[in-house]
């Protein structure tokens, strides 16, 4: 299958981060990957991305503000006509840095907020950060940036959604993203502690609908559903390596944040080949393009062009086969895995595993094995 045009690149500039969020999407193995791309390698990659047709660049991490060359990278991305979005936890920002990014042409900032409740916010982030984040949100607005506030939802904060919406509006955010936790990487390790109950989800969805209507035109509210509770799987990434890619701090080009857990796939690095070649020829990116790889019940399913059989990473992580139907699908022969997870969540569990170097080392030992079966 010919490679489609990519629109979006997520550049994970570094795995370094002062926060230890329980739901971090970075690979559990992050501590072993310290050999970050150089400034020149990133700049060349941004140019190649623009040449492929990419229009949107998310500068992410870890905490991208850690990179001393961030102003240079922003300036270069803008010169390639890429729309630049900084995805940050905010705790390392200050006025001087923000002014510098603005002068380099940064278009937009997405700030993560853990909760309106200080105690829970800091429990989830694993460090003191609540006051600093609010201070930075205000500064971002004062300096005239468009602001998205991103909140990952889970059982500890989902009941605070009305307060989270009010706070985002008060801070002057143009956009609020309320995204239920997706269970990969660190979030999968902490799944039982993070999964909301059915009752919690039933409460929050009407609140979001009402708020969306109320704030229409002033603050856009995006809501990412809890996919375990859906009848059909999410159309993951709009299809594997279709118009989106994630580039890791060491240069590997992935179709999403999580795909490096799937064994047997090789994801090339921009260190070794130009992005323009990788996007078209990478074995890993081509593995699940199109639908030739599908098994039943996906193969003959009329929904296969809607949701592409769901998420390949989830199929591997939960059912042990990346080409299987996403177990979230009610038609999956392994849907029992999801039902068990939901039943477990109703009971709850206090175990919390923070995203830090020590846990990364400990957990990496059994990486590449389906863990949730």
């Amino acid at each position, binding site marked *: 299958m010919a490679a489609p045009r990519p*629109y979006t690149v997520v550049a994970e500039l570094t795995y370094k981060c002062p926060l230890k969020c329980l739901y971090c999407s970075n690979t559990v193995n992050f501590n072993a990957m310290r050999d970050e791309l150089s400034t020149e390698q990133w700049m060349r990659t941004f140019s190649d991305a623009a040449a492929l047709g990419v229009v949107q660049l998310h500068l992410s991490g870890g905490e991208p503000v850690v990179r001393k060359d961030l102003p240079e990278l922003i300036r270069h991305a803008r010169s390639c006509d890429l729309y630049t979005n900084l995805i940050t936890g905010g705790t390392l920002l200050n006025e001087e840095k923000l002014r510098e990014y603005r002068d380099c042409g940064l278009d937009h900032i*997405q700030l993560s907020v853990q909760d309106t409740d200080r105690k829970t916010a800091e429990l989830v982030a694993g460090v003191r950060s609540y006051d600093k984040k609010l201070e930075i949100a205000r500064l971002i607005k004062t300096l005239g940036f468009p602001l998205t506030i991103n909140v990952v939802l889970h059982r500890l904060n989902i009941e605070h959604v009305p307060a989270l919406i009010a706070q985002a509006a008060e801070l002057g955010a143009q956009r609020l993203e309320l995204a239920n936790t997706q269970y990969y990487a660190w979030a999968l390790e902490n799944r039982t502690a993070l999964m909301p109950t059915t009752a919690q989800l039933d409460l929050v969805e009407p609140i979001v609908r009402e708020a969306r209507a109320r704030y*229409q*035109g002033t603050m*856009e509210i995006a809501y990412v559903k809890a996919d375990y509770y859906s009848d059909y799987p999410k159309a993951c990434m709009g299809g594997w390596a279709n118009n989106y890619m994630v580039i890791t701090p060491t240069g590997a080009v992935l179709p999403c944040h999580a795909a490096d857990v799937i064994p047997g796939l090789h994801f090339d690095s921009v260190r070794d080949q130009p992005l323009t070649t990788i996007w078209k020829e990478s074995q890993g990116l081509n593995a699940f393009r199109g639908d030739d790889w599908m098994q039943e019940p996906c193969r003959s399913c009329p929904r296969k062009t809607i949701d592409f059989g769901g998420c390949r990473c989830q199929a591997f992580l939960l059912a042990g086969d990346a080409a299987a139907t996403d177990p979230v699908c009610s038609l999956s022969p392994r849907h029992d895995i999801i039902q068990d997870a939901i039943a477990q969540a109703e009971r709850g569990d206090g175990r919390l595993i923070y995203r830090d170097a020590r846990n990364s080392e400990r957990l990496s030992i059994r990486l590449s094995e389906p863990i949730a079966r």
Partner: protein
Amino acid sequence: MLVFPEAAMMLNETAPEILKLCDGERTVEGIVDSLAQRFSGADRTVIEEDVMSFLTRIKARGLLET
């Protein structure tokens, strides 16, 4: 193409012309005037409808501050 966080909007040929005139100073009336002058062959009422429908749509998506 109009690019914004997490999405992009494919624009027809007239939309970029409208956007270029959204400078924070011009009124809707002013935008229509300017377009009517540049495209003197076009009906002013049609231009006005195009401008209003486009601005209403991007305003609803939070892409226009008034």
